[in-house]
């Protein structure tokens, strides 16, 4: 939104101090995150509600898919680490480093999305559709695809955003602040996944 990183905090001289002492854009990212957390929460509640009321809920995930999910967790949490490297580099004015680490993070996100899509396609290959699957309650597909789909949408959006931020940052129009703010978003995507894994994968593990 802003064109330059103002070195001087505009609050200092002419305005009342913000109660949180963070830039507005960071505050807005936090607010967006809690709002989005509630949106994801509503999805997970809906899933729990329907699953809980079903007698024939399928538990199809083989150990292989669980290990795959764990690998995805590893990739996503690691990308959370690399975006922290990017933030750190940006704060130390290491523009090349920050650029590199942001792109590596976006690469991690891409890898995650690819793994996820591979899993989706194998599930679709097994006959899972939005409202149909070979094992039991047809709502399984609906809840699985909506929750993981919404999450993947966030990942893909994040990858695009991080790429744009990295390029704009290298061009000098963005500052460390922007990388930090988008790192918050990226961590949030990671956190959502921390809930998706146990709720969607582990609970539906083959027993």
């Amino acid at each position, binding site marked *: 939104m802003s064109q330059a990183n103002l070195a001087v*905090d505009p*609050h*200092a001289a002419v305005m009342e*101090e913000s*109660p*949180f*002492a*963070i830039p507005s854009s960071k505050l807005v990212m*936090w*607010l967006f995150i*809690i709002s989005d*957390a*509630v949106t994801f*929460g*509503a999805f997970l*509640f809906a899933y*729990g*509600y*329907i699953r*809980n*009321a*079903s*007698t024939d809920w399928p538990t199809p995930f083989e*150990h292989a898919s*669980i*290990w795959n*999910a*764990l690998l995805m*967790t*590893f990739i996503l*949490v*690691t990308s*959370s*680490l690399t975006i*922290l490297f990017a*933030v*750190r580099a940006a*704060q130390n004015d290491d523009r090349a480093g920050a650029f590199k680490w942001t792109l590596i993070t976006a690469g991690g996100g891409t890898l995650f999305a690819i793994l996820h899509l591979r899993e989706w396609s194998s599930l679709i290959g097994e006959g899972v559709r939005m409202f149909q699957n070979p094992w039991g309650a047809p709502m399984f597909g609906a809840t699985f695809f909506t929750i993981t789909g919404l999450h993947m949408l966030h990942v893909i959006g994040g990858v695009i955003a991080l790429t744009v931020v990295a390029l704009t940052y290298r061009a000098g129009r963005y500052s*460390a602040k922007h990388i*930090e703010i988008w*790192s*918050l978003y990226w*961590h*949030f995507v*990671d*956190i959502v996944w*921390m*809930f998706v*894994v*146990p*709720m969607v994968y*582990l*609970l539906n*593990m083959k*027993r």
Partner: protein
Amino acid sequence: MNTTTTPNASGKSNGMATTYVVYVTILAIAVYQVCFAMMAGPQPMLMLALAILQASIAVMYFMHLAAERQVLALALIPYTIFVLFMMNMIWSDSVRLLHMRPH
């Protein structure tokens, strides 16, 4: 009150050591969850509690909420938890649905 921006919230002050510890902890919890679920079956409440643990340390140390002014955490977290907590009122109907389905 301090009117200049505090050099907080970005890992500058607290080094990367914490970050690595948090990173390893989150992954360890994830592995524990999976192993536990594979051996003893998934226990929803335990899984959820562990996820909340993961999420809270991620929020506090990856997102540096712990390093921000405390008032930010106090504004955001109780509010979100309250709203999500209220949603739990739907469960009793979900259970009824199971017992009172037609036929």
